[in-house]
């Protein structure tokens, strides 16, 4: 590592903040773009599992709340892609790479949704898992991204409440409604355990080394389990992992080790809904590209 890069590394590791036009090592810039782009991709792809349910929402209140939640996510995608653009990669190229499968998006958005039970579970637990990561990103060394995370975290706070309220209505409703939630939880538990990534130690995670992430994957997962396992169990729902328990001595949660190869396969486009979702996006983009080009015409 050359002296300038070493100096930069020490700077970010001691809490230094980086702005768009500051000098940064090529490796830092490349990792930053890849990480932030994946986040933007995820917000965009995250819309697809949920958007159909807007049309099927069973009350006006739920319809409005779900529409607003998804609107927020599209907005977050916009904010996050702007950060990537200012780092040098135009939004259209981000979309090209997403749709060609070249760049990735989070595991949870590669799975199908099957019922209104999924809607509640996703809004409550998937968003909860996401907020934990996003709060850690408030300390990102790259300041423009950290600032965007402030707005993102503020807007996400209602999503979890809406999700939990949706789940609560069902678990206090008919036995069939309770079953919808339990069944959805059974399917979403593995993706949730995968969500924060492999338990790579912080010092070995380049994202942490450069202080792009400020929390290890395992710490994030533990935080999720700490916060949400009690909340899930108190509703009478069963978590489909018989090994899941908190070791009172260490304060750490023990669980069945997720299949990390499965996670890898999913994020490289082999999830149950990956191809279908990308195909849908490609089609939609092709249909409206003409309008986008008229309004956002390139400067002469």
């Amino acid at each position, binding site marked *: 590592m050359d002296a300038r890069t070493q100096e930069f590394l020490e700077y970010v590791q001691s809490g230094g903040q980086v702005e768009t036009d500051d000098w940064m090592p090529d490796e830092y810039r490349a990792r930053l773009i890849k990480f932030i782009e994946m986040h933007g991709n995820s917000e965009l792809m995250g819309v697809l599992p949920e*958007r159909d349910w807007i049309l099927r929402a069973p009350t006006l209140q739920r319809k409005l709340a779900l529409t607003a939640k998804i609107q927020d996510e599209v*907005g977050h995608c916009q904010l996050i892609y702007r950060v990537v653009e200012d780092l040098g990669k135009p939004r259209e190229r981000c979309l090209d790479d997403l749709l060609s499968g070249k760049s990735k998006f989070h595991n949870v958005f590669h799975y199908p949704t099957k019922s209104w039970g999924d809607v509640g579970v996703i809004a409550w637990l998937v968003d909860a898992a996401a907020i934990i990561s996003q709060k850690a990103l408030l300390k990102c060394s790259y300041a423009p991204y950290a600032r965007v995370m402030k707005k993102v975290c503020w807007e996400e706070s209602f999503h979890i409440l809406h999700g939990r309220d949706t789940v609560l209505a069902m678990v206090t409703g008919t036995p069939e409604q309770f079953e919808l939630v339990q069944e959805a939880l059974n399917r979403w538990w593995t993706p949730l355990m995968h969500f924060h990534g492999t338990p790579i130690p912080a010092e070995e995670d380049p994202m942490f080394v450069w202080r792009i992430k400020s929390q290890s994957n395992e710490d994030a997962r533990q935080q999720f389990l700490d916060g949400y396992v009690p909340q899930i169990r108190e509703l009478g729902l069963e978590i489909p992992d018989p090994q899941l328990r908190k070791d009172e001595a260490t304060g750490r949660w023990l669980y069945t080790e997720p299949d990390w190869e499965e996670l890898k396969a999913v994020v490289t486009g082999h999830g149950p809904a990956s191809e279908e979702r990308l195909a849908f996006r490609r089609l939609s983009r092709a*249909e409206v590209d003409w309008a986008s080009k008229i309004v956002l015409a390139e400067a002469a």
Partner: protein
Amino acid sequence: MQARLRAEIALELADDELILGWRNSEWTGIAPFLEEDVAFSSIAQNEIGHARALYELAARDLGDGRDADALAFDRAPHEYRCAPLVQLRLVPDWARTVARHVLYEAADAVRIAALKEHPDAELAGIAAKIEREEAYHRLHAEMWLERLREEERFAAALEELWPFALGILDAELRPALAERFARPEVDAVERAAPGAEFAELWDEMTVVRRSAPVGAQW
């Protein structure tokens, strides 16, 4: 005024706004670009919000135990009074979507302006609120109109949907709309019992709701 009569006015308007809001939310996540996606979603939400306020009024007037959600979701397809214009499935055609948006906002403006003058204070009050919110919808529609004016497909869409737009309004209000667009008042596509396209929409709209008994909480 008679509660029944007020309920009928409210229901017709509510059904238009609900179904248009429903159709507009079909664009969530797939609008031409991200900024527009967010903006168009607010318009859809506002429409559903208007529908909700109107259903609440109608529910009180009908006084038969049904609440706003019951009116929105639990009627049979043939009982809805929405105009043909709002029932049309236009995704993924942005030109026709904008054409409908431009025409509907203009027609609604004429209708709402009249409703603001209604002797019933509550109805007039809701109309005034709707008008204040829809002022922004009209600005949005106009900004797109400016951009797409020269586009062949947009001009064709306006032409195609014009008779449908007239059908939003009662006969005595149609000349005002015709004047606004400097177009002749042709034969309108009139309100009628909703058909197959609506039945498909209703089916999807109510599939979750119908999976539990009437009165179940969600």
